[in-house]
């Protein structure tokens, strides 16, 4: 059994990551805050609890793999990798700048510790399946986690990959859907309704888990549940809030792909500081 980190510690880390995301985006002058803020807890649950990984040995053969299929959410991934010690935190401020390793969308050619280049939506789960199949024929015990956006599920390739994972009984594949209910053009419900989403994955022969994607206990419970699922891939449908943690960004699609300006950043950091102080009091 893995030792669960203290939840108040994880909450504080989530705030730290959100501060980093917003600071990076303000410095970059462009990028995607909404969909970066929405999956912070899911990502922390992986890197601080669930994944077998070692920042000092990033190419460890039997490491678990994480693929960010919704590549535009990479500021969150960069922030977590930096805070885990994969590269210096100062480098976060180079995001989207010339000669930076932190490209606007995750690019393995620039930052080799990434598991895959992504950014064109719909491609990550197929890659995850390939890694999982290869590990099975080689008898290497690893898990592959793939985080997808909800808007991304419009892509046909995703459903091809969903069929492949089920057909090959890839119980070492875990898809995580950041179901924040918005895509660029508006609410997912209005643009192209995904419901009934859980039933869709079930019908495709996946084990499904539905959680609150900001609740660390539910997140860690879901990750633990993977150990008992055999001969089936698992999807965690995580209900999240786009722009989570910053009042004026939450559920506001206008913050999908616009970076905060200085005044927004100051306001947001202040809000996050207040949230941080509350954690101190309550825990």
């Amino acid at each position, binding site marked *: 059994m893995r030792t669960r980190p203290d939840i108040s510690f994880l909450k504080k880390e989530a705030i730290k990551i959100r501060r980093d995301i917003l600071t990076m985006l303000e410095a970059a002058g462009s990028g995607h805050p909404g969909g970066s803020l929405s999956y912070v807890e899911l990502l922390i649950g992986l890197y601080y609890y669930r994944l077998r990984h070692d920042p000092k040995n990033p190419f460890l053969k039997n490491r678990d793999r994480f693929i960010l299929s919704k590549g535009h959410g990479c500021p969150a991934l960069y922030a977590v990798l930096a805070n885990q010690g994969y590269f210096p935190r100062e480098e976060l401020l180079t995001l989207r700048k010339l000669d930076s390793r932190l490209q606007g969308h995750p690019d393995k050619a620039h930052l080799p510790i990434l598991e*895959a280049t*992504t950014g064109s939506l719909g491609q990550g789960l*197929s890659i995850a*399946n390939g890694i999982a199949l290869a590990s099975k024929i080689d008898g290497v015990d690893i898990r592959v986690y793939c985080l997808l956006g909800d808007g991304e599920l419009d892509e046909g390739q995703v459903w091809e990959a969903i069929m492949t994972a089920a057909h090959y009984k890839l119980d070492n594949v875990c898809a995580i859907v950041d179901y924040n209910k918005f895509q660029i053009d508006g609410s997912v419900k209005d643009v192209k309704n995904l419901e009934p989403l859980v039933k869709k994955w079930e019908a495709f022969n996946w084990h499904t888990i539905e959680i609150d994607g900001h609740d660390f206990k539910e997140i860690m419970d879901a990750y633990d549940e993977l150990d008992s699922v055999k001969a089936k891939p698992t999807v965690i449908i995580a209900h999240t809030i786009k722009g989570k943690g910053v009042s004026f960004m939450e559920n506001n699609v206008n913050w999908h792909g616009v970076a905060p300006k200085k005044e927004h950043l100051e306001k947001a950091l202040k809000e996050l500081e207040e949230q941080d102080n509350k954690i101190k009091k309550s825990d």
Partner: protein
Amino acid sequence: MSELKPTRDGFGEALVELGRKNPNVVVLSADLTSSTRANYFMEAFPERFFRMGVAEQDMVGTAAGFALMGKISFACTFGVFATGKTWEQLRVSVCQMKLNVKIAGSHGGITVGPDGATHQALEEISLMRPLSNMTVIVPADYLEAKKATIAACSFPGPVYLRLGKDPSPNVTKEEDLFEIGKASVLKGGKDLTLIACGIMVAEALKVSEALEKEGIGVRVLNLHTIKPIDKKAIIDAARQTGAILTAEEHTVIGGLGSAVAEVVVKNYPVPMEMVGIEDMFGRSGKSQELMRVYNLTHENLVKRVKQLLDRKRTPSY
């Protein structure tokens, strides 16, 4: 020129040889397993063969995942689907990471015959060439397809192999060396060079033989690798023969002819023309009928060679 054999057969046989030699070779197939000859590998190494169904984009992504784990993956389907449906998956999931994914696109060209336009791939070279890190190979015959497949396996990064459906004559010999990026002169000549790939190499050789009798020396260059292109062989041809005619069973927009022209224009401009499919789709018919209708036969090439020689002799042109 002995017995006729399709290039896809050479590919299928080479896969089995590779499977025997290299445990890291895996093969994925998008339902056209017998047509692409991937079934030879499937029968020999079922544990390293993966059926992906009619899902080409997913096949390419899965092949990329295998490659990220140190495998060399061959993804097989028809050329139209291998390049058209999956172009952007090849771009991002394969080429941007320079992964060891080898794409085998069979049924290239007009000689797919009766299946008609949807299945006649005429654009693969044009689609694959601009992808950074992609290597593009069009074997001239069965023997070369076999060697090209084996060479592709150990060549770093993504490789596209264009294969044909119809049996075609062998124009190379068993003992010929094959090197990716190195064109081979199959016949000498000083008046003009015919640069061809795929089944058009056989047509080019017929042209050269026919014109030899008329005292015209046509050099035949087998440009099996379109990318990386053999600049030296092309510049030598321009300098030494003063005129170049290209021949491909493929659109002339962006294909072999365009690739050769890019080298010629930048290095040693000489009169040059291109034979290929002229900005149109294919249609149903027998292969030989279609070769004639689309002006790809050696008879047509002879005419085009003579026209180009006239142009060469007219200095003011």
